């Protein structure tokens, strides 16, 4: 359904824009119908940049993004609007997604004015109530209120309801539950999984591996804008191969097992040139080989549905 082909993003930084920052490098993956795909990485790994590129909030530097076989990365005007009927996003902070001066349901009237100008009031209310019920909200309790009168979980579900008004096929969920409390976050997560049954595909961007495992079929692990491991979530979790994935798995705080006393190698600066393996400076010394210095390793299939980009892992 959605396919990324060698997508890259270069930001220009520094005083006169002379410094190039490679946020996303040559990323390719695809998401099938009714699939939940997790995009996992630390801050600065480029995961949100990918989400924003799919939503066309920022331009892509090279590569293409295909939606149902059509390249959408340069669409404009009516075609782009048509794309937004199918693809919508929800972001991390529900409180800053609303204008606090206006009532929260203003986000619905925007959708109505833009996409459904000819719909009668009765039809619209029916549609709105229906989509609020899908996300588990009682319309009487939540409509006509200001953002501060609603909880974070309610606001986040409002945003999902807004996306559902458009009969979307694809949702970009960028860290949508990291700001919610434990008691409500699991409800929003279950909602995503329920929506899949209605034919929705989701790109679930997160840094929390246990949540990714809970909900997704396939996962992509990103490091500094490179895909280091991807494949079926089950296989990545049971058999993490890339040293970075292993580091992440070992550092996840969990309730059934305490941390093993392994040493965490913290990130250092430098080595951005792309002429060695991107993980070279943080990798364990006994795993480094001469091959690692030769360039960025490409993804290789180590078992069915499990790809890894590491010279030391694929031998």
């Amino acid at each position, binding site marked *: 359904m959605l396919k990324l082909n060698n997508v890259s993003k270069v930001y220009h930084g520094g005083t006169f824009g002379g410094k190039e920052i490679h946020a996303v490098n040559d990323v390719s993956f695809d998401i099938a119908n009714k699939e939940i795909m997790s995009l996992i990485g*630390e*801050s600065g790994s480029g995961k949100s940049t990918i989400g924003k590129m799919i939503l066309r909030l920022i331009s892509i530097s090279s590569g293409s993004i295909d939606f149902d076989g059509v390249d959408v990365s340069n669409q404009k005007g009516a075609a782009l609007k048509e794309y937004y009927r199918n693809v919508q996003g929800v972001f991390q902070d529900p409180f800053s997604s609303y204008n606090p001066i206006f009532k929260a349901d203003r986000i619905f009237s925007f959708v109505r004015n833009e996409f459904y100008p000819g719909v009668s009031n009765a039809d619209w209310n029916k549609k709105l109530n229906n989509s609020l019920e899908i996300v588990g909200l009682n319309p009487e309790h939540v409509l006509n209120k200001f953002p501060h009168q609603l*909880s*974070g979980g309610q606001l986040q579900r409002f945003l999902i309801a807004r996306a559902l008004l458009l009969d979307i096929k694809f949702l970009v969920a960028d860290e949508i539950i990291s700001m919610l*409390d*434990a*008691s*409500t*976050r*699991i*409800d929003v*997560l*279950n909602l995503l*999984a329920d929506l899949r049954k209605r034919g929705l595909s989701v790109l679930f961007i997160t*840094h*929390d*591996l*246990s*949540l990714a*495992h*809970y*909900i997704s079929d396939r996962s992509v692990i990103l490091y500094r804008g490179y895909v280091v491991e991807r494949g079926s979530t089950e296989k990545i*979790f049971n058999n993490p191969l890339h040293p970075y994935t292993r*580091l*992440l*798995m*070992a*550092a*996840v*705080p*969990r*309730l*059934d097992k*305490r*941390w093993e006393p392994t040493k*965490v190698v*913290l*990130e250092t600066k430098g080595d951005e040139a792309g002429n060695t393996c991107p993980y070279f400076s943080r990798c364990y010394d006994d795993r480094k080989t001469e091959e690692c210095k030769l360039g960025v390793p490409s993804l290789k299939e180590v078992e069915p549905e499990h790809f890894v980009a590491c010279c030391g892992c694929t031998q």
Partner: protein
Amino acid sequence: MTLQVEDLSIYYRTLRGDVHALESTTFNVGDNEIMGLAGESGCGKTTLGTSLILLKPPMKFIKGRVLLDNEELPTYDTEKMNPFRFKKISIIPQYAMNAMNPTRKIGKMTGELLRSRGVDYKATLPLLKERLDLVKLPESVLDMYPIEMSGGMKQRMVMVISTLLNPSLLIADEITSALDVASQKAVAEMLVEFRDQGLCKSAIVITHDLSILYEISDSILIMYAGQLAEKAPTDIIIHAPRHPYTKMLIATLPEVGAKYSEKRLTGIPGNPPLLLNPPTGCRFRDRCPLAFAKCVELPPFVEIEKGHFGACWKEFGPNA
């Protein structure tokens, strides 16, 4: 006993009345104990942590007593707290990453802070370098501006500054929440290291993430809507909780390995009550599956076994 809090109540003064953010809390933190303090947002955990060190308006001291190393703290008086602050009791604030002055180099800022406490910067410099080494920061950070450091580095730097005067009690407010899993682990383990090396005698770790507490804390105190719900050694809270809120809170956490398709987790229905004119009695009763008539009275926070406290009529009451 490093810290004894007796019947402490802190309200927020607002135009519409008092917000009962912290209601009659009584608990102890032992020597060399790392106590985790957990709860949902708005349950009063940060209020509790902050009020122990700096009672700033609109916080209002209502009643209670705080003893640190058997000495009463003048919690109610901001001026009189000055000799204790940072020397006996110190805090790593929430959003510590933004706590540093962006216009000063780290070294200069640390010097200014030390001078404000009447400590000589030059004499402390060897100690400072030793501590930087402990958190794996190079000495060169002292010549850097905060903007030149990553979030994890800033967090570690603030940890060093907060503990430089070897406080008895360290309050760590959400120090890991904004970090990636790898830095999260490093910072959490450094906190344990600080305690083990005696840089602080005891610590209160405030977080909403119970799984982090399972890794590092000795005991966990669960709060709900300004009241204490349960306190027990870490293993008991995680594996054998008694209070219904603790049970439900733990049930909402996905374990590594849990899958939606195999085991669907459920949240806790409902919302916490507003703390402006809060309901009398147990504040969890609207969401509690076990609630009964007695719950309109306030359940006492009683010790049921050694080190295991709880406030619930059904679980810990006389007829339980």
